[in-house]
Every structure is written in structure tokens, then in C-alpha cells.
């Protein structure tokens, strides 16, 4: 463990946080770095509200111990929008009512971004599999499928949905 705690990259910036034995990446992000976009729905890996992308893979941040993040590249919902504006997926989520209360949205977005980066033409089943661990109590996931397909089409350059 590095002197002075854990070092990693969060949304492209160097970051440091404490490395207590029970400390999770979720706590580090929310409490030390002030990145409260990532939500805590259960603290037990069952709901996916805390999904972040760690070295390209979506993970439940509540299940990652802080020391496991040493040297990792971490992306959270706060890093999705670029200088040019919202990510196409963020816009599509708002337009299609892919959320209601919005508490699952940050984790849901990160699972879907990871999917779109690996698959630019996801089928309905691909999307449902990608969000299989993201619990949403407000929707029935239909609008999420619609949002991801809308964003995928836009990112491919205006083609119709897959």
C-alpha cells in the first residue's frame, strides 16, 4: 500500500484516498472525494446503484475494497459529460424517461456506457444482460432499453436502432 493512502485515477484526474481495512471504493468516492453521484442502495452488491467503471469493467463500488483500487483507472457518472455537453446516453435517458426517481441512474448509466464501449449495436438482450445487476424500482427497464438503443444509433452516426 502506497505511503499516504491509495493512489488512482478518477475521471482522468489523479486522486488519493485513505486505505482503511474496511473502507470501500464507494465510501472513498462519496466521502473523501465528494463524488456523491455514485449512490449507495444496499452496501451489499445487490442493487447496482454504485456501479462505476474500473479499468474498463463495470463494478459495484461497494464490493471493491479501497486498496484494490490502487493504480486503477476509475470512471464515475461525474466524468461522463464532456466539455461539449452531455454524453448521448445521458441525453437519451432524459428524453425517454429511462428513470423516474433517478437514484439508480448513475449506476445504470455506467453499466450501459461500458456496454456501448464494447458493443456499438447492442440488442435488447445485450442491454438487459448488461443491466442485469442494476435494480430499478420505478421503471420496468423498457425505457432503459429504448434509451440505450437511441444513444447507440446516435453514436454510430444517425442510423436507426439495431
Amino acid at each position: 500500500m502506497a505511503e499516504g493512502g491509495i493512489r488512482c485515477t478518477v475521471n482522468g484526474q489523479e486522486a488519493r484516498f485513505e486505505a482503511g481495512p474496511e473502507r470501500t471504493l464507494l465510501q472513498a468516492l462519496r466521502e473523501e472525494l465528494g463524488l456523491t453521484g455514485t449512490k449507495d442502495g444496499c452496501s451489499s452488491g445487490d442493487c447496482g446503484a454504485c456501479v462505476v467503471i474500473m479499468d474498463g469493467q463495470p463494478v459495484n463500488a461497494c464490493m471493491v475494497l479501497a486498496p484494490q483500487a490502487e493504480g486503477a483507472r476509475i470512471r464515475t457518472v461525474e466524468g461522463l459529460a464532456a466539455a461539449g455537453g452531455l454524453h448521448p446516453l445521458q441525453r437519451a435517458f432524459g428524453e425517454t424517461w429511462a428513470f423516474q426517481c433517478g437514484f439508480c441512474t448513475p449506476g445504470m448509466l455506467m453499466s450501459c456506457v461500458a456496454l456501448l464501449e464494447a458493443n456499438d449495436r447492442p440488442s435488447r438482450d445485450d442491454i438487459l444482460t448488461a443491466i442485469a445487476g442494476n435494480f430499478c424500482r420505478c421503471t420496468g427497464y423498457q425505457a432503459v432499453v429504448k434509451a440505450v438503443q437511441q444513444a447507440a444509433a446516435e453514436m454510430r452516426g444517425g442510423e436507426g436502432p439495431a
Partner: protein
Amino acid sequence: MTAPAVVGRWVSAPGAAEIVTGDARYCPDIRLPGLLTGKLLYAPHPRARIARLDVGKARAIPGVHAVLTHADIPGENSYLYAEPDQPLLAEDEVRFQGDAVAAVAAEDERTAAAALAAIEVEYEPLPGVFDPLEAMREDAPRIVAGEDNVIMREVYRTGDVEAAFAAADVVVENTYRTRWAEHAFLETEGAVAQLDDEGVLTVYSSCQAPHRDRMQIARALGLPESRVRVVTPYIGGAFGGKDEAHVQMHAALLAHAARRPVRLIRDRRESILTHVKRHPITVECATAASRDGRILAVRARAIADAGPYTNATYEVVNKFGEFIGGPYRVENLEVEKIGVRTNNPISGAFRGFGAPQAAFVYESQMDDVARELGMDPLELRLLNGVETGTRMYTGVVVRAGDAMKASLRRAAELIGWQGRTAQERQPAPQLRRGWGMATILKGSGLGRGLGDHAGVVLEMHRDASVVLRSGAADMGQGIVTVMAQLAAERLGVEYDAVRVVRADTAQAPDAGASCASRQAMVSGNAVLAAADSIRATLLGLAARKLRRDQAELDLRAGEVWADGEPSGLTVRELAERASAWGYPLHAEHVSHFEYPPDVPEASYRFSQEVFQFCTQVAQVLVDCETGQVQVERLVAVHDAGRMINPGGVYGQIEGGLAQGIGYALTEELVVSEGRTLNPSLENYVIPMALDIPALEMDVLEFPEPVGGPLGAKGIAESPIIPTAPAIRNAILDAVGQPLYELPMTAERVLAALDRAAPGAEDG
């Protein structure tokens, strides 16, 4: 030419940009200087006497700023949803697993946990009462001293039930059981309280009723309501589970005692163990029918398990009885409704408020009657369904009821009801396919005779931007969007020009609770009335400027329109004129839920009179070896009166369907001797993305003639109501075996199959 109206358009929610960027702040995200962590100590026994409670050691821990027991509450030590029988902090006895006995505030999570561990409590466990029938016996221990265990026992009767049963060709009689269900809103209950320099206690509250929270907080602290302010940050779902206050008073008490801001958030386990659940109800129901398929009479007796405290039991059980006849012309009906205290989990409000349990009973009965008569379930429903003008068994006249049969016909068309028998019924040796439907009605509003009103404040600025202040909490259901659309529509401005201030009691008048599918109607009407007052001022100025009669003018898309054409005069110019010359462009209005005067005296108490109608049809595949039920298709046709916000309407429907599938098949809190055995999202099984079929939804628009803003109806509750009976009836169709208990888990399906073929599964 016509400019596009804002109402009926797909628009994003006003807070969408904040939600997708992670900027939206929910209670757990609030950061304040000096913020302490609050925690509650909960009872380890479902019923016990508190022999000794000593917080001395906890108070001595460095970093602990407050440790409170019942003795430290300056005001009233009780919740007040209905009756003040639930303590905030238990005094001499704990009565269920969710009773708190002490509250702490400390520098951080770890210190707060240490403080809880240092509190010394000696309990003398008492024998609990876990069976409502046992609790109803004369010699049963009183759950709450001095209070009857029977919270309510009422009989409602209309027509001549005895004679109707005597004359019936067919009588179907069954006993139904439903179990505790959990809301599982993704954001657990939480509150953040802060006392400011002027002695005002501000409480950020994840709630459904900010003004009622304010009353309860003031009452607990012994403060005037003028010194309490409740603000709703973003709220991560509620579904009835945050209708009653939860930890708001505890957070406020701690902040007041510690003189530091306090954040108190329940963890998932605490959330499941403590907040109200959907009432488990045991129902004996008999339905009488004639040979030609007319429903002659319904008789039901329902016993609901309230848990130890009154909470919403009266209202929920009353609503159960109100809908037990379903959307049918039933002239003879008798329902006995009983709510009983036990030491089980507390029951209360949950989306549908007694109607889902009632629908499981009446729609199962309908299919059992159809089988008995050899009739098509669709035909039986069409034959008996209410219509516009039908006087219901409650005494209420249905003002807009054409959606009942229209939704049945449309849903049957979408699923291919007539052609279904051509499909494979046994695609593999162990698999059976079947189809089932359910159609329901559910009222909106609190009910006749109850105070049911909502206020808004609306203001247009000189640049024609608009601020709307309402006390209506938005937990995700979308009331802020609906209000912004209605204001924009009437003021002739773009939707984006309206900013809605999230409910804050310091800024907005009381709008009542966001419950009972009421806000779109009652707050919607308040917005229309306030907007019309400003609109009249704008049109008056426009009439003078254009030298036209005011009645010939309209405001649309930022302009004044005359003779169906834009005039070139903008709303902004009018707003500038009004501002320059002192014409008021602000309005406050309080709207009341409207009830017509034509109800006979003997009508059902607190009846609702605006009805949501909907029909759902399920196609299922049952695995007779495992008992697993797969929902292959689910069709839902709902009447919205008129859609204001289509995104929200479809969103509510798909979410209700997902919740309905869970209620039907998997969601069950397992409770043994007052203890919940599965208080986690891992073990309380909720359908996830891969468990839900493609949902086929359609919305009908039969405008509500009285009391619906532009004809709109509330839509929030109905989608969850028909799902369980539709699936039950599909299982019945598939395997020929009726189920009478929810949820219809694989074990219960197998048990039903075993009953049909005793011994067949033994080998």
C-alpha cells in the same frame, strides 16, 4: 395552423440534467459543515418490557454529541399519521422489531456505532401475538396498553345479499391470503436536520408529505411550526413507504440537542425491518352468479394484520372493502373489514392502498365463476362491467366509465385473445402455456368528506420566465413535470421557461401528501387556476394593445394568437408591460378535490369517485416439474383520462407492471414470530431486468368530466393492481389449478399441482 401544445408532449423531467450528471442531491448526498452521523438503536425482540435503559456510557464516548431516549423528547413522543399510538422512542415496552429505543449523533459512522453498542438495555421478553385471529380473542394480551387489539371492524352492506345468494345458480367461495410486501424504494429513508442562527430547524426530508412532516417535527420538539422548515431534496422513490414520517423527527431531535447538523439514513436492513409493509390480508369471499353469467352478489370478510400500530390501517382496509366488488355492477354486496394489531411488522400505505389485495380476490373469483359457468372470462367481464352512469355498490355514480370495457376489448385484441387457443399449449412435456386477464378500477383522491386540497404559487417575471412553487413532493412519479407542462400550456410559454421549486414549506403552500394518485389532479387544478389568473392579466393587456376582444385571443408558444394566427405580440412584451405598469403577474390558488352532490346517504364511507380503469392480460409458461412461472407476455391497457406527460404515464405503467410481477410471483417478506428473515435485497426477491418480458402497453384517453385538469386522471397506482390476478388466471388456464395465495412462488405452484394429482409427484 395550430402551435404545438405543451400538454401531451414527450418532455424531459425538469431535473433530468441533474440526475444524469450525478449533480442531483438526495438526502445522503447533502454535505454541511460540522455534519454529524445519526443512528437509531432498534429493538432486538418483537415484544419485550424494557427493564432498564442506561445511556451513560454512550454519552461519555469522545465524539458522541447526543444520546437520546424517550425521556429527552421535549414534545410529543409519537408519530401522527392517524393515531398517536406509535412512539418515536419506546418507553416501557417494545412492540415490534422496528421500534427504536435510543438515538445517537456522533462525529462519524464508527463513533455512532460505538455509541449504540455502549447503550445498556435490559429487556424482559414477553410472549408476542403473531396471529391476528389470536389477537382478536378476548383473553389475548393487549398489544398497546389501554387500546383494543381490533383497530377497526366495520360492515358495509347494500342490497339484499341473503336473497341474492339464495336465488343464485352458482356460488363460488374461497379463502385468499396475501403476505407482507416491501416497497424497496432504492433510496432508503433519510433526513438531514440543521438548526440555524435564528432558531429555525430545517429538515431535508426524503418524504411524500412535507407539510405533514413539518407538523410532526414541530410536535415532537415542542416548537411552533413557524420554526420548522421542511425541504425535499431529490427523493429516490417512495411508493407509499415514505407517506408517514420515518426518521425526520429523530434527526431533528438530535440536531436540536447536539446544536450541530445531523444526517440520519437507514441502512437497507433497517429500512426493511422498520417501515410499513403492504398489509397481509386473509379474505373469505363468496360470489353468487346466475346461469347466464350475471354477478348477483358478493360477500367478503377480510382480516388484515396491522402490526402493533394504527398507521394507515383504517384507510387501507377501508379502501380494500371499497373495491372488493371490482369494476362490476354488483347490486348486493356485504363486506366485513377487520384490522387487527399484532407484534408483526407494521403495515401501512403501499401503492394501491388495499386495492391490489382486493383485486387478487375479485378477479380470481371472476375466473373461478367463469370456469364454473363454462364461460369465456372476457365475456363474463364485459357482461358485468360498469359503464358511464352506473351506480356502484358503493353508492357512487361512475362519471367516466367507458374505459372499463374499452380497455378489456383493446387488451384482448393486443394479446390475440380470440386466437390464443391456436397456439401451442404444451411446448415441452413439462411445460404448460396459459392466458389470463384481470381488469380493475381504483379511485383517485383521498375520498369524500376528507380534506383534500393543494395550493400553488405561480409567478411570471418580466422576461416571461416562470417560477412555480408547490408543496407537492416529487419522489420520481413526475408531478413537477405535470405542473410545469400545465403552467406552460396556460401561460403560452415554452415548457423550459417554467422552473419548479422542489417542495419547501418555507416557499410553498401545503399540497397534501403525494399519495392516492391525487397530485396530478388536485395540484394540477391549482396550477391551472393560478395560471389562468395570470393569463387573464396578460390577455387583458394584449386586448388593449391589439384592440381586440380578449375572448378572441390565445397565448401559445410565446406569442399572442388571434384568429388562429400568431399576432407578432410576444408574451415577453406583455410581461415587460405588466412589470413596468405594476400589473401583478403572480397568483396563489388552493384547489379542492371535487365531489358531485348526487350520492345517497347510505354510500360507502370516504368513497373515491374518480376512477382509473385498466386491463392486463398475461401469457405464462408454467414448468410443472419445478413450479417456475415464466411471464412470456404482459399486455396493459390503461385509461389516463388525458395524458399530460406521456413519458410519465408510460413510465408509471411499466414500473407498476414490474412491481406487479414481483408481487405476483416472488416478493415475500418471510416473517416468523415477528421477525423478518429476509431483510435484504438479495433475499427479498424482486424481478430484475432479465426477469421481465417485453411489456406491451397502450393508453386510452377518456376525459374525466369533473375534477380532472384538462380531463386528466391520476394514473400512479392502478398499474400494479391487476398484474397478480392476471398472472394467477393465466396459471389457472395453463395447469387447471387455482391458486389462492400470494406470492405464487414455485413452491406454491407445485403444491397446487400436487393437490390436483395426489401422489403423482411422490416418485
